[in-house]
């Protein structure tokens, strides 16, 4: 599996990361090295196995449909970079 600069740019966009063009080649080489290492998984015979998503067999626990959390918006918004009137402020997204 060869990783190209185009792959890195595409994946960076999917992950919403901005890669400095000067660092692109470094990513190509290091991610390529990681993917070569991961490619060793191909040798495993796993045809008879189901994917294991979680370390324990468990069903989702249910709880009574009751309100347990109180409104703590002001407290939570203290960590926000920018708010106004209880709303989060971002650059204009709708023209």
């Amino acid at each position, binding site marked *: 599996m060869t990783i190209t600069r185009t792959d890195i740019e595409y*994946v960076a966009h999917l*992950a919403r990361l*901005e890669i400095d063009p000067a660092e692109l080649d470094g990513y190509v080489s290091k*991610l390529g*090295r990681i993917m070569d290492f991961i490619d060793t998984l191909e040798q495993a015979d796993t045809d008879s196995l189901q994917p*294991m998503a979680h*370390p324990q067999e468990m069903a989702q626990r249910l709880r009574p449909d009751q309100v347990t959390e109180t409104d703590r918006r002001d407290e939570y918004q203290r*960590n926000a970079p920018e708010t106004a009137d209880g709303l989060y402020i*971002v*650059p204009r997204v709708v023209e």
Partner: protein
Amino acid sequence: MSDSRLTVMEMARRLQAGEVSSRELTADCLSRIQAQNPALNAFIAVSEAEALAAADAADARRRAGDAGPLTGIPMAHKDIFCTAGVATTCASRMLEGFVPPYDATVVARLAAAGVVCVGKTNMDEFAMGSSNETSYFGPVLNPWDHARSPGGSSGGSAAAVAAGLVPLATGTDTGGSVRQPAALCGITGFKPSYGRVSRYGMIAFASSLDQAGLMALTAADIAAFLQVIAGADERDSTCADTPVPDYAAALETAVTGKTIGVPGEYFDAGLDPDYAAAVNAALDIYRELGATIKPVSLPNLALAVPAYYVVCPAEASSNLARFDGVRFGHRAAADDIESLYKRSRSEGFGEEVQRRIMTGTYVLSAGYYDAYYLKAQRVRQLISDDLQRCFEDVDIIAGPTTPTPAFELGAKTSDPVQMYLNDTYTVSANLAGLPAISLPCGLVGGLPAGLQLIGPHMADATVLNFAHVYQQATEWHLQAPGGAA
């Protein structure tokens, strides 16, 4: 009050006997931190005022006859556990200045037991690293040799305990982040079974692998703390509601007649020969204690690390999508929302974190999901099945924690795969959700070596029992950096 490296049990005895107050123990920890932390960089933040107030409250509880076994014991939390009103950074620029509005369940349960938190320990950024070099706040130094890494990601907790700054610290273990630094710093580090301890308020890295852990001088100290933090939590649906046994009571059980499985693959190429000798010497101790050593096989051991480095970055890329510069965390200046996301994340996250997000996004992307992500999950099942098969014949699995003792800072930073191979012996327990401990078992070239014990799911008491009887028979856990006892 200048005895260095007191255990939790010894502190508890002195508190109980009225020989010392929590305020004195806490002040002593704070003065050690003040003296040694500038060199070690083990703490990101020290909360002196809060700690002394908590110590006074603990002393008041004791006077009122309301003290529990751990009331008044000072300790530290890894800076991945949310602490209400105290900054929690995950060693990332992304969370610089973030003050959680709530406590993690582990933090809340210990506080309710009267335990005193003196500060937050340094770590690899978002727990992604095996050397503590990815921290935004700079690497922690190994107390045994300041040119070497303490391991990671819970390197600050390991160094703090090894240097005697605190008797115990929390850690988290996603692929070995409690056990590997414990081994490299010569202390005891325990990763409980997945689901034994709540993950609520523990900043998520890879949710099917993460587990809160404990780092201390002895297994007995860890058992006492596990008793408080283990058990169901309605705020974490993956936290098991199976009953919590009496861990202290199980510590003394004799290992006579028990069987220890030793995978031959552990001793293949890559393991330092002197490290192997230290592990074999530990197995001899267990023979003398009446246990049987039985060879077992983990034929797919070499696939554990590559499988881990698919599953773990995949989950990380998803978990870290929440950091978008809008609701909390670092925000970069930008004129449009897309640039705001991208710049905030690229400025806020360090190199290794971005690399793992990229790897995870890649293996989950259209066209590669089956070939990488589902394949790795099938290999995960294979590795879990191999371990289960061993436990049909043995009570516990033993081997080295790491391939070598502490390596020099900077030695593995240029090649991520070399760094990842540090996790060869530790990741399987996370993939399978099993309890595992690292305990000091010797010195290699003057540096600590770690013995790892892995038990069946929810057999946390068995793992602590095996560790404790070894520590009753040996003194490696008492070896302190610089030769001080």
